[in-house]
Structure formats: C-alpha cells, structure tokens
C-alpha cells in the first residue's frame, strides 16, 4: 500500500485574509482539513481577535457554536502546546464556520488542582454569553482557567474534586473517588 500523501492545507477561507489584514504584526498559524479552517492564536492576542471576528461585518460570527478543550499529551504529531481550547464560530447568515484554537503549556505538574498561571486564557463570555458553561466545563475537565469569566466554578464535578479528569495523565479509573463513600448498612436507617 503506498504511503498516504501528506495533507496539504488549503488556506482559502476568506476570514483568514481579513484577520491578517487587521492584525499585520501578529503571528498566526492556520490549518485546514476537509473544508474546516482553524486559526491558531497566541493567548495574549486571543480576545482581540475574537472581538474582531464577531464585530467586523465581513466576518460577523454571531454564534459561538461550542468551545472545548483538548489534551495533546503523547499525541503522535508534534503540536504547539500541551493543551488546546477550540472555539467553533458560526455566521448564522451565511452558515460559515470557523475554528479558533489557543494552545497553552502548563508550568506546574498536571496531577494537581492548584491554579497554574500558565493555563489561563481570556474568557469570551463578554462577546458570546453562551461561552459561560462550555468554558466552565473546560476548566472542570482540564484545569484551564478563564480571565474575567463571570462564574469560574466547576460545572460537572463538585468544588473539592481532587483532579481534572479529562487530562490524559489522569488515571481512567480515577484516584479512588469512586470508592470513598460511607457504608450504609441495615442498622443505619
């Protein structure tokens, strides 16, 4: 079987050109796969770019379809960082879809839950209010915190949960969370 040809991204999404024009001095990366274009933004430029994507009438991404995190630990292909947060933007008039990706690298060991100053991204809740719960989920599952988020709490697990379970170095069977309950017997009713 012949080796598969490396995929050559086709960077013809009109939004890429607009972003490049608007931010000529900022470094971006971009990828494309099967018609879906992602723009990779550094964390410090992220909020400004998102505001442009929403407010510029040629982009007008008025709907944040979803936002989720990825842990690239032990990923076969090299990546710009360990964690990524992906925002999926939609223009509801033209049905255009555009992905924005932010990579962050942890500065502390990732088995704890203490606040890592390197794992912080600006929240986009002020641009799209629908980002509130997905960003809470990213925080809960990956430990990535969001600046200026109105309610930065865990959403699925409880406040004292001793881990961020979707990190790849979190053991699948947990660290005993499912075994530590009081035992109710018949005399305990």
């Amino acid at each position: 079987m012949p080796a598969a040809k490396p995929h050559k991204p086709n960077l013809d999404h009109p939004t890429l050109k607009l972003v490049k024009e608007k931010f000529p001095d900022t470094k971006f990366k971009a990828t494309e796969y099967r018609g879906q274009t992602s723009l990779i933004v550094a964390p410090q430029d992220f909020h400004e770019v998102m505001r442009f994507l929403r407010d510029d009438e040629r982009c007008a991404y008025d709907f944040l379809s979803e936002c989720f995190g990825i842990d690239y630990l032990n990923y076969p292909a090299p990546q710009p960082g360990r964690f990524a947060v992906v925002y999926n933007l939609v223009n509801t008039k033209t049905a255009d879809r555009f992905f924005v990706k932010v990579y962050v690298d942890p500065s502390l060991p990732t088995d704890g839950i203490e606040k890592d100053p390197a794992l912080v991204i600006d929240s986009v809740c002020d641009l799209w209010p629908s980002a509130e719960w997905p960003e809470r989920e990213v925080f809960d599952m990956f430990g990535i915190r969001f600046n200026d988020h109105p309610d930065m709490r865990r959403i699925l697990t409880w406040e004292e949960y001793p881990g961020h379970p979707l990190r790849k170095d979190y053991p699948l069977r947990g660290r005993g969370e499912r075994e530590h309950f009081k035992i109710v017997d018949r005399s305990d009713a």
Partner: protein
Amino acid sequence: MGLEAAITAEGFMTTQLKRVINWGRRSSLWPMPFATACCGIELMATASSRYDLARFGAEVMRFSPRQADLMIVAGRISIKTMPVLQRIYQQMAEPKWVISMGACASTGGVFDTYAVVQGCDQFLPVDVYVPGCPPRPEQLIEGVMAIQRIIDEDGIPPKGPDGKRIPLGIALQPKRQPVPQPMPLTLN
C-alpha cells in the same frame, strides 16, 4: 386468595400474626424507582400494561421515599449520585428492601471509569440482584417475587441480631426451562 373456603360462617380464622403481616407487606410493595439509565425504561415497561407489575401488588411507584418500601436501583450510579442514593435509602421507612437491577447497578457494568461506582452494593444493603443489560421485564418480576419470598421468610420482629433484618442468602432456582427464541410458529 381462596380464603373464603377456610373462613367459618362467623368470619373468624386462626393464623399467625407474622403470616398476616407478611402477607400484607408482600402483597402491597410500593417501589421507589431510582431509575438513572436504560434499565429505567425496562422498569417502566414492567409496570405498564403488557407485563403489569400490578399482578404482584407492586404497581404503586412512589417518588417519595417516605411512602416506598422497595427501592429499585435501575441504572449506573455515578459518584455524584451515590450520596443521593444513600440519603434516599435512609429516608425510606422500615421495613425496606432494595433490588439492584442490571449490570451497572450491581457491578458498574462496562463503565469502569473514575465517575461510576462499581456496584451500589458496596455502600448499600442490597437484597436481590437482577442480572441483565438491561434485564427483561420478566426478570425484574422474578426479582420482585424473590423479594416477596424474602418477606415471607421474615420474622416479626426481625430475626437478625439487634432486631435488624439480615439477608437470607437464598438463590433463585428457575422453575421452568426458558423457551427458545425465536419461538417456532405453529398454526392450529
């Protein structure tokens, strides 16, 4: 019940108090459906007209634990649900029984992850396990009938140390051969 033949013309009958109380309890089980997953669908099917759990006196599903005496744990129990389940069990009035319905409630099933309790019997006293994924309604009815047999054996007051009920440890022996499926089609 066939009782009429045994009752004299004056309407008196001699029996043990234990048998009367147990007869009343076994014939009016009020289940508390703790349905968290697809086993709950089979539980609904069991209670509905085709299988009709009412034939065994257990059709009054109570969503208040204060009014129920049989908890049916139907579905996987996550780590957030387990304290709730224990709380609800403690709120049920004595006497009370627990059925663990299906593979997930009894063992965690295929969900061997950090978030799923690997069997609610680790933290709750379970009387009857109904295997299956999910169990068929007939199996759940068999489980309810096993609870009725447990009640029949119960002493008044309960036989266990400290007056608490102890599990009987009976194993169900199927009384009939299962019919092969699909069944052959016979006419006339």
